[in-house]
């Protein structure tokens, strides 16, 4: 679509002009230049908005001439999911990033751009680079631009469709949320760069703080939505798999959390100047590195999730490389210009413990970065290798322990002076935490590392809970950070109980019969319930100690993936979730059908049955022809031949054949007409014998049922964490006003 391609080009040029104008304004401070720069910023922003609307419109109106529309949508999608295909592909997510960038830019113009135009220089530099990528992977490219075999002007009848796994409400809001978080890190980068260029290392943190809080909140919200989607949709039972795509979203968040605490320390104590600049840069560059890892296709072999190879590799490498150099060069050159107050001495002051907490977040970020990048650097030394999930699970244990120690003690300590304060609170809290841990031990908490982490997490919750309680009546917004800490404690407990103490059992359910699983539930499969969207549900009745419920896991054939897809049923309760995931379905066994051919009055003998074909009875009706085969079916029962007269039918109607099976009394046998041959007068019969095992003649559903103890605690923890940070954000906004 030429207008769309033109729009991206205009936005790119406007972006460059705007970047340059802000740069010159920074030097000259000529008001006209600022107006010019703003004008071109708004031109770029307006064109980006127009492009987004144009692409949405093309998607909604099924303009399959566009490769993007063809590749990710289809006519059968409902409006809701159809709109979500706007961010189903790479081009769309870049466009979304640009749109967010324009919104952030608008806010920056209204707040800091006049005084600090360099922030806008770096913002627009990044925006322009993304526009350059989009020029090469244009969302408005026609299908014949991408597929050589397609003739010019060709419009496919229907699109390729959207992966059914993505047709889920969480998947509609998860990617745009995560991309909001990703793109917001460029504001942090722009502020850090401005600080480096202008050598103002104290002032910037006040301006950047709300943005850091914003990025932190949005990233964790997006990550959690993805985890919840995986848990409730993918059916493997977990919410986190240390997959490259997940890891790539986690690292910037970890750096943002560290930066947020670094800013608090710097605003109180004027230290950590370098660390904070570095963290702001790292948050953004880790986003770029993550995009390179997951979008360029370098990890294609190592991740289920990653986008397929895209031909963008060079641009993405340039993206990371360029901005890393752009950041590191002034950073290293400026080392001696940093004015740094000495860090306080002693352990038991707030800043030391906070720094320890920060360090654990940074270290965790580095672990994930090193682990996820393993296929890149190992390929230099030999065979490319990826890291198994065990690496992250093991290494994060000691880091988490240190993190919890820091988070529990820091809130009680004073700034600057090293003195172990509030000893009474510490001892009492430790005793309560110990008591709770002891109860959990009696309930089955065994592993030493989880006992330690559990104790520390309880300790964090109690101390931060006490601090929150003390503050909440006086100044609610000051309590917000501690609420987030309580959330962190709950998250750790939820992760421990749900991952280490989950138990599962696979069970086969013959239709209609109650079977007891090893976990103690009695389950009955009764059949499938057809759904209008084609995602049929298996109907299960589950009897537990505290009542019976109906489980409805989805199990359906998907044309998109040419295979069966399963979506689990999750019965969410406070103490535990019961998670039922279909594995396999075997329809009643019809494969033990034997075929025989019989002429009139002929008798065939199989193992213990005899069949005699008497005659055809043919009815001609208005609706078509019906052929009955009149048979004598003898079954040997305890050496006694029992005769049954049966008449299977074959209906021919408008070229369509329908076979009606005839049951042979209650012997379990049935018979159907496969075909008739009018010229020779023979009939081809299919004889279905009762299966050897009684169960085999019934539909059978195999399911995996598992228990996830206290996973609700994890979700509660996340909600508290986000709630706490959100009130920080609001509190911060108020303090500025």
């Amino acid at each position, binding site marked *: 679509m030429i207008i769309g391609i033109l729009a991206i080009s205009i936005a790119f040029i406007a972006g460059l002009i705007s970047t340059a104008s802000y740069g010159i304004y920074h030097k000259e401070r000529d008001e006209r230049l600022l107006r010019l720069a703003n004008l071109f910023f708004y031109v770029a922003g307006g064109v980006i908005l127009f492009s987004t609307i144009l692409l949405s419109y093309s998607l909604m109106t099924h303009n399959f001439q566009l490769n993007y529309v063809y590749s990710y949508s289809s006519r059968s999608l409902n409006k809701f999911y159809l709109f979500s295909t706007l961010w189903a592909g790479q081009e769309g997510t870049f466009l979304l990033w640009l749109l967010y960038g324009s919104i952030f830019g608008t806010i920056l113009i209204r707040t800091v751009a006049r005084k600090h135009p360099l922030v806008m220089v770096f913002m627009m530099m990044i925006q322009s680079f993304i526009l350059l990528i989009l020029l090469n992977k244009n969302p408005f490219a026609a299908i014949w631009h991408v597929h050589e*075999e397609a003739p010019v002007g060709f419009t496919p009848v229907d699109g390729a469709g959207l992966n059914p796994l993505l047709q889920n409400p969480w998947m509609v809001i998860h990617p745009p949320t995560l991309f909001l978080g990703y793109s917001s890190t460029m504001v942090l980068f722009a502020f850090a760069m401005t600080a480096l260029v202008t050598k103002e290392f104290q002032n910037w943190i006040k301006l950047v703080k709300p943005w850091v809080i914003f990025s932190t909140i949005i990233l964790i919200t997006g990550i959690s939505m993805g985890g919840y989607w995986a848990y409730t949709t993918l059916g493997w039972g977990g919410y986190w798999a240390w997959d490259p795509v997940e890891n790539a979203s986690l690292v910037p968040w970890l750096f943002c959390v560290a930066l947020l605490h670094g800013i608090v320390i710097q605003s109180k104590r004027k230290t950590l100047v370098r660390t904070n600049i570095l963290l702001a840069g790292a948050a953004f560059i880790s986003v770029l590195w993550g995009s390179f890892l997951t979008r360029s296709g370098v990890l294609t*072999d190592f991740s289920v999730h990653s986008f397929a190879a895209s031909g963008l590799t060079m641009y993405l490498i340039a993206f990371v490389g360029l901005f890393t150099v752009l950041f590191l060069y002034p950073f290293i050159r400026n080392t001696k210009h940093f004015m740094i107050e000495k860090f306080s001495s002693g352990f038991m002051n707030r800043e030391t413990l906070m720094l320890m907490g920060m360090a654990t977040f940074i270290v965790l970020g580095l672990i994930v970065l090193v682990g996820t990048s393993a296929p890149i650097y190992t390929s230099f030394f030999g065979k490319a290798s990826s890291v198994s999930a065990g*690496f992250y699970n093991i*290494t994060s244990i000691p880091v988490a322990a240190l993190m919890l120690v820091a988070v529990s003690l820091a809130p009680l300590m004073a700034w600057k002076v090293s003195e172990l304060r509030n000893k009474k609170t510490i001892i009492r809290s430790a005793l309560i935490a110990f008591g709770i841990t002891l109860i959990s031990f009696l309930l089955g908490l065994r592993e030493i590392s989880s006992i330690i982490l559990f104790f520390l997490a309880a300790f964090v919750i109690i101390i931060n809970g006490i601090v929150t309680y003390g503050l909440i009546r006086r100044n609610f917004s000051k309590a917000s950070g501690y609420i987030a800490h309580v959330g962190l404690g709950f998250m750790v407990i939820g992760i421990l109980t749900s991952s280490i103490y989950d138990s599962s059992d696979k069970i086969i359910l013959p239709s209609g019969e109650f079977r007891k699983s090893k976990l103690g539930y009695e389950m009955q499969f009764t059949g499938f319930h057809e759904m209008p969207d084609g995602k049929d549900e298996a109907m299960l009745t589950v009897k537990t100690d505290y009542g019976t419920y109906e489980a409805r896991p989805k199990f359906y054939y998907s044309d998109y993936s040419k295979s069966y*897809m399963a979506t689990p049923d999750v019965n969410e309760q406070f103490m535990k979730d019961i998670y039922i995931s279909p594995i396999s379905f075997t329809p009643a066994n019809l494969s033990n059908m034997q075929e025989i051919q019989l002429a009139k009055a002929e008798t065939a003998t199989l193992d213990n049955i005899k069949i005699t074909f008497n005659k055809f009875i043919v009815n001609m009706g208005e609706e078509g022809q019906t052929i009955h085969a009149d048979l004598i079916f003898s079954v040997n029962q305890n050496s006694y031949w029992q005769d049954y007269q049966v008449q299977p039918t074959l209906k021919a109607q408008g070229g369509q054949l329908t076979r009606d099976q005839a049951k042979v009394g209650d012997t379990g046998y049935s018979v159907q007409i496969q075909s008739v041959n009018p010229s020779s007068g023979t009939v081809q019969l299919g004889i279905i014998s009762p299966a050897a095992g009684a169960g085999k003649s019934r539909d059978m559903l*195999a399911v995996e049922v598992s228990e996830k103890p206290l996973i609700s605690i994890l979700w509660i923890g996340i909600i508290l964490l986000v709630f706490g940070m959100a009130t920080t954000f609001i509190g911060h906004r108020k303090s500025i006003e």
Partner: protein
Amino acid sequence: MKPKYIIGLVIIVAFIVFAGMNLKKSLTPYVSLSDAKRTGAVVQVKGQRVPGTEEFNMDDQVFHFEMTDEKGEKFKVVYDGVKPSNFEQATEVVAIGRYDNGIFQAEQLLVKCPSKYEAEGVKT
């Protein structure tokens, strides 16, 4: 140097050693089947599935199938888990696990699927 920094440094160095050891241990290289047989270690074998061999065994409750590695050597894979939902569509399968007693015991299966339009081309 203040004792604080020394303690901090010791913790960091100890941790780097700890993390490095674990990293080395958990690296799973891409190998051919013959390497997998030889080492018996946890590895990743990339290859093609043999269509029609996949089956969920109702009795021992495992999913098994056959695949061929990149050198064309055929082998049996057993996976004690739920079959990946897009398995039949896979152009490539990566089995992560170890070779033991004539069977590849997979801990994890990665399935590479073509995006649909790549697979079928544009329907004209």
